[in-house]
């Protein structure tokens, strides 16, 4: 019975995924395990174990459902908690460097090239910054009441969900 329910959910999940996949940024990407974790048959904590991940294992991300990602490793395919996997390969962050620097107009000098109109915000700039009353007044002019927030939430169909803060892991 339990397994049937999971199967049903699994099919539903597959259906949802096939409908919504263009919006799911993670799918079709490679990922890397941030820690050792269990791969499960369905996206449920009590689902059957179908494999395991070691830290830094490369995975293909196939689908996302709630708190879970469906991933494919060299050995198996299964569902793992989303927070156990990061996007990209182990060393992928070093491959885009040149491109990113060129794109942001900062190749070489480490300084912002003013003609591009792109500017950063360095520690040095923050240390020497002067108070700007005009900008501050402008910021203050946008202040909303709790009621405004509530109206906005209602318009978006947002409803509150009680959830206690969780403690830091030891």
């Amino acid at each position, binding site marked *: 019975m339990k397994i049937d329910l999971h199967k049903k959910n699994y099919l539903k999940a597959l259906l949802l995924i096939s409908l919504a996949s263009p919006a799911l*940024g993670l799918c079709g990407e490679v990922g890397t395990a941030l820690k050792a974790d269990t791969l499960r048959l369905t996206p449920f904590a009590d689902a059957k174990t179908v494999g395991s991940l070691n830290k830094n294992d490369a995975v293909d991300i196939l689908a996302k459902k*709630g708190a879970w990602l469906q991933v494919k490793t060299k050995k198996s395919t299964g569902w793992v908690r989303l927070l156990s996997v990061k996007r990209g390969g182990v060393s992928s962050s070093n491959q885009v*460097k040149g491109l990113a620097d060129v794109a*942001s107009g900062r190749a070489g000098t480490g300084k912002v090239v003013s003609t591009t109109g792109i500017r950063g915000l360095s520690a040095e700039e923050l240390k020497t*910054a002067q108070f700007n009353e005009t900008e501050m007044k402008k910021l203050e002019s946008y*202040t909303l009441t709790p009621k405004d927030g509530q109206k906005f939430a209602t318009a978006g169909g947002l409803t509150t*969900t009680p959830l206690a803060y969780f*403690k830091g892991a030891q």
Partner: protein
Amino acid sequence: MHKLLIGLMVSASLFSTQSVAFDFGKALEDAAKQKIEEVKSGSGAANTEQAKTPAETEATKSATESGATVVPDEKAFNWKNPSTAEEIALGREITGSILGAAPLVKDDKLQQYVNKVGRWVASQSERADLPWKFGVIESSDLNAFAAPGGYVLITKGLYQQLNNEAQLAGILGHEIAHIVQKHQLKVLQKQQLVNIGAGLITDKLSKGNKLAQKAIGSGAEISARSLDKEAEYEADRMGVVLAVRAGYDAFGLPEVLQEIGQTNKTDNSVALLFKTHPHPDERLTKLGDSAGNKLDNLKAGKTLENRFYKLTK
């Protein structure tokens, strides 16, 4: 100004090394108390009244004696136990200085939108009563800032990385958590009590915009410094929970961390963020460890990409 800043830095490093060796905190507290007494009684080195006219001095006195509403710039700033008004005044100085370095993006609709999302998320916190203010600033960096009393700024560069409202809610939730937990305020308090104790500054503050400058050097300097790693992890945990409470998908903040984690460590756009925060991989790992199964069975939250205010790049 510059001298003062150097003084602050020196004393901050003094604190971090000496506190290991002995109970510096207690000694500090005593020194601070003594200094405050000196100021109250109008004696000691802290009594630097020459800049004030007799009328101003008189006004300060009567305001203090009558127990009138605390106006931070006309009374000794209560660093031991700042009032909400003092906290807000301090946050205003810090935020105004960041705005001096990077002004608001000139887009009313964008600023209004961010205030709506932020106000709603902040209403789920324990400090819903603060006059929360949110702004998007002109910077291609990926970063966001919080200042005491309810000020939150996010860079245009980071905003442009976002795909939906749940992600924005997660980022704002992280910054809101810093303010709820008074993370920056506590750092400033500690530092100020050190300075007062060391006789580097007085706890008398001059008028107007000089408040933060006198107290903390350049107002925005605190924003260029790191908090404890644990404060960042806590803000991540609370940010996720605040977004969930507001009805959003729980994974907005983790998705943004995933995205930022893809950025090269040596890219200038993340230089300050990576200097002041643990790497996104570490943050995701910690978040996963502490969340455990608590996010498994939530009712589906909303991402609201349809009404997300898109900024052209």
